[in-house]
């Protein structure tokens, strides 16, 4: 499950009206709003992990990593 790559203390909630997800990084206190649904988000995270390092910066998911929501 791609959510295994989430940092310790990161919480995710996917809304039942399919409007997207919200994530909290408990360590930094930052809350993010993401238009993707849970399954789509997990796919994107998996893609990001598998990307060669030099093109990772172009991915939308790069900011999740920068803000320490993800660990690789």
């Amino acid at each position, binding site marked *: 499950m791609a959510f295994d790559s989430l940092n310790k*203390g990161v919480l995710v909630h996917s*809304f039942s009206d399919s409007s997207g997800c919200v994530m909290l990084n408990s360590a930094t206190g930052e809350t993010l709003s993401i238009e993707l649904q849970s399954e789509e988000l997990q796919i994107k995270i998996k893609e990001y992990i598998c990307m060669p390092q030099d093109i990772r910066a172009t991915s939308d998911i790069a900011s999740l990593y920068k803000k320490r929501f993800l660990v690789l």
Partner: protein
Amino acid sequence: MVSDFYLDLHPFSFKVTTRIPQVLTNLQTIYGKKLVKYDGQLCSYELSVGKASGVRRVIRPQARFMCDQKEPFKPLSLQKSYAFLEWGMNWTIAANEVQHVIIHSAVLAKGDKAILFPAPPGSGKSTLTAYLAHNGWRLLSDEMALIIPGTNTVVPFVRPICLKNQSIDIAKKLFPDGQFSDIAKDTHKGDVIHLSPPQISWDAGKENAELVGVVFPNYTANTDLQIYQLDKRQAFMQLVDNAFNYSVLRGVGFSTLANVIEGVKTFEIFHNELAEVKDFLEQEVITGG
């Protein structure tokens, strides 16, 4: 002059000390029988508003607010001293209380079903709040909604409604028999007045309610009633923006608000007719599947 008073404002209680006559008069108008002489009752916090010292005492008199030995704000002009006490009370709770998720929002209930009305200044929220409170709804709070963590349950914290600028005249026309405080002029929010909610709100002051809706009201002149269903993700982020202690509560705050949003209907409305809003809320939000 007796200067120590006790206010039981469930779920908190306060010892209030003041020698400023205007403050005492306003406290009596707003809180009525709830304001009693302090006689050693157990309180959550001790507050005081008194005259500032030094030359200021005579030339341009000022009031100081203290929460026990702490003075969180610079003094304000004496004319604003009652409003200062109310704001100070809000600050005291927001700064110290972390066992509820506290939202900067009005919350009112019809029976035991409640709706949150978070709103930035200028949205006309307080006029709507005052209207509902005088028309069959009960006020749980005007500015601080207390949600029990992990639930959709709101605990009442009944206090006066804070009205600003144009809302003041509207409210005085709508509720000619209302218990209004003096107007505090030229505050950072403009002119401000406090209105005590009707007796039914005070009488039901210990009865919790379940949230069934989160509604973002916007008063817009010359507009028919427009209702937009907000998607839950947006509603959640707006609620987070309006939460006092979200950053302290972290995971608990996040989970609680996510579950609240899941369990309620979420709307943004644009209106200029209070009665229309009331009908919409009663027919579509409080009742209905």
